[in-house]
């Protein structure tokens, strides 16, 4: 009988009959733009515009090219961790150890650099490799030790930090400030854009392409959205989880190298402590669902930028750091509330 069956509701789209059914309502052009850019991005852009307007109107220096570059370089390291954290969260995990891994990698890069007679490439490669190993350790603890990612990486947050302190004896290591490669990373630029920003854009771009345009990325969304569905569909989810934590470790390793480059020495703690919260804040502000399955690199980048502009602007305007804390908290809430108002969700229960 199905062959001859009359069309079912969703299919019919005669204007009159369906005026009341939602699927038939024609979206307004505004609505369609909103759909394409995404509610999250639109609200982040609105928040960004507002913040820029307020700051710019108080101090026109804000718009100087050099300041934009200052903002870009200031957010590069936390931005790197935020974009990779986005991938981890989309997959249904969370990596709290990224800051410690960056610290360990920073120290290691400087120590290897020094030990190999100032061979920067070895320092770089070593740091990224160590990051990768740390990530694999995280992944293995989670998958094979059956430890929840939050507690596993809280544990390795402490452990990796301890290792960084032990190998460096708690001291800043080496001096990379006269090596051309490290200098290029810290202060060089290509086409007028600082290397630091290029690194962030490159990593973010790769991750974006992976998430949106490869089957790997789509499987990551599936894994985070419903791991049973992913597993039953034949996805080797353990391998994915391992790979994603390894990736996070690797990117944290890159961040560690950049910390070394920027400060001129390997820093076991300084400059990497607290980065995990910044990364999670940016990812969450970018609308990444902390339960997994939803999020986008672009939104996270916008959130990173928003936070960076806000902090830069407040410092520029000479706002006292105590007020900065209050303002930052308020803006975080406002930015998310804007998103939620647009989505028209009902006000029941715990969001996301």
């Amino acid at each position, binding site marked *: 009988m199905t062959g001859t069956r009359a069309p079912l509701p969703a299919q019919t789209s005669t204007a009159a009959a369906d005026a009341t059914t939602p699927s038939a309502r024609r979206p307004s052009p505004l609505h369609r733009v909103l759909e394409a850019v995404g509610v999250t991005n639109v609200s982040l852009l609105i928040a960004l515009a507002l913040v820029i307007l307020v700051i710019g109107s108080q101090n026109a220096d804000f718009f100087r090219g050099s300041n934009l570059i200052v903002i870009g370089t200031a957010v590069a390291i936390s931005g790197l961790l935020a974009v990779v954290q986005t991938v981890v969260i989309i997959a249904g995990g969370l990596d709290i150890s990224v800051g410690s891994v960056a610290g360990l990698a920073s120290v290691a890069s400087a120590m290897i650099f020094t030990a190999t007679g100032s061979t920067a490439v070895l320092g770089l490669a070593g740091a990224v490799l160590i990051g990768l190993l740390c990530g694999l350790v995280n992944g293995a603890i989670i998958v094979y030790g059956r430890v929840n990612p939050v507690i596993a990486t809280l544990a390795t947050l402490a452990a990796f930090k301890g290792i960084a302190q032990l190998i460096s004896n708690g001291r800043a290591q080496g001096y990379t400030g006269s090596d051309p490669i490290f200098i290029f990373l810290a202060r060089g630029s290509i086409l007028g854009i600082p290397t630091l920003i290029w690194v962030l854009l490159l990593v973010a771009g790769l991750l974006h392409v992976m998430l949106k345009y490869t089957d790997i990325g789509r499987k990551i969304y599936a894994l985070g959205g419903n791991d049973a569905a992913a597993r039953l569909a034949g996805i080797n989810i353990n391998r994915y989880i391992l790979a994603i934590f390894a990736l996070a470790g690797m990117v944290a390793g890159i961040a560690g190298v950049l910390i070394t480059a920027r400060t001129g020495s390997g820093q076991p703690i300084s400059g990497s402590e607290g980065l995990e919260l910044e990364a999670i804040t940016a990812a969450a502000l970018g609308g990444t669902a902390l339960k997994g*399955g939803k999020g986008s690199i672009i939104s996270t980048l916008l959130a990173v930028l928003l936070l960076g502009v806000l902090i830069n602007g407040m410092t520029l305007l000479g706002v006292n750091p105590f007020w900065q804390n209050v303002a930052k908290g308020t803006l975080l809430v406002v930015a998310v509330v804007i998103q939620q108002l647009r989505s028209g969700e009902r006000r029941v229960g715990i969001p996301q």
Partner: protein
Amino acid sequence: MTTTSTPPTLVAEGIGKSFAGVHALTDVTLEIRPGEVLALMGENGAGKSTLLKILSGDQPPDTGTLRMHGEPVTFSSPADAMAAGVRVIYQEPEIVPHVSVAENVYIGRLPATARRFNRRALRERVRADLERTGFTGAIDPDTLGSRLSAAQRQLIEILRALTSDTAVLAFDEPTSSLSDAETESLFRLIRELRESGVAIVYVSHRMKEIFELADRIAVLRDGRLIGVRPAAETDEEELVRMMVGRDLSSMFQRRHTGAADQPVASTESRRPVLELRGVTSDDVSDVDLVVHAGEVVGLAGLVGAGRSELARAVVGDVPLRGGQVVVNGRPLRLRTPGDAVAAGIGFAPEERKADALLMHRTVRDNLSLAVLDRLSRLRFVRTRAERELVDRYVEQLRVRTPSPEQQIRKLSGGNQQKVVLARWLARRPDVLILDEPTRGVDVGAKAEIYAIIDELAASGVALLVISSELPEVLGLSDRIVVMQNGRIAGELDRDEATEERILALAIADHAAEGASR
């Protein structure tokens, strides 16, 4: 159709499986042959789903072996089984919430060249699949997984199977929330697959479907294979006897007697308890409906007709855009379902896993959830009273569980459903809305649930029962309201209702609309 001489595609030999003290399967040996539908029957908790999970590599068997085309195989993950050509459609659809329907269907097998994921090809392919399967109208490939209704979720599971190239295909209660129309499409597709030589396993509690589809019928009881019968050589009675181990025919005779016949209820039976006046929500328009004390109103319609949506609007779970819900003459101010519950409305939703169950809590916790306030004194839960209540319902509905302290996720699907029902039966509200109350419930328990519905009606409760199983609607209701496209398409009295007339109402308007286009 097929002769026993055809070599089987898949053989399960001496399969045994137990979970912490529960023997789900014991020494089950089954042959699954190409070009044949093998039906699997058994009471709730008999081990059907467990057997399918073993076939799919989702769970390893404790004992026994699988042989594929004569060769022993070990499936250590669903991926292995799929690679070998075995695919299982699960009882609880697993849907990825934030990706499209299209991706959901092809999850794990996305069209990609050199890892590059081809969105357009995917959409085209799913459109074609929908066309071929006849589900085009029921589901839009671009919708997000989180927005799907129970039936649509089930259709996705079905599409996953129908679009994969497999030698063995197993369905675990695929029609439990589908209406007859979708069921027909599914059957047509299954028959086509059978013709092309696929070996099919089909699990269902619906006798009608079994006899319509199956070539052979295997019956499980308490994890043991009781026997396998050619469909042509057996009948309902024998199957029931095999399933429950005793004659259950008496149960089938306990048909609904009609509340009006009950002397107790008759005096107040015409008193309207639930009145909907022009109820309108996002997906429901202008619904007028009255349910009287002691009356059972059946709500029928195709998938997506808006029945579940109406129920949610009535309990205040989706916002009313217009109209009024009146209970016992008092218009309600509905902000949350809490308001509806306080006003005396109970609602057992359709999707037990998503909307009803606390998967990691015990049977007891799940069962007493809606009556906790009544069980508490000074906010302390009276555990003795609670235990008595739970024991009573576990026994009455024959919930198969080692103890009320078992985590509910470890129960079989049908037994979970019984607990959801028991939660609301225990509350005894003035108005009870049941959305697909017997979804996945076995024959015996179904009869028990019908009896309870009767009893509730007799005691003056107003019942609104949503069901996609027409015989159920017909057998249970005093009055049948048919919905279509978010509106009421018509109403049939108990005496005038037939399957044909209900179906006509459910799709009639469409035909008119389609023609006017």
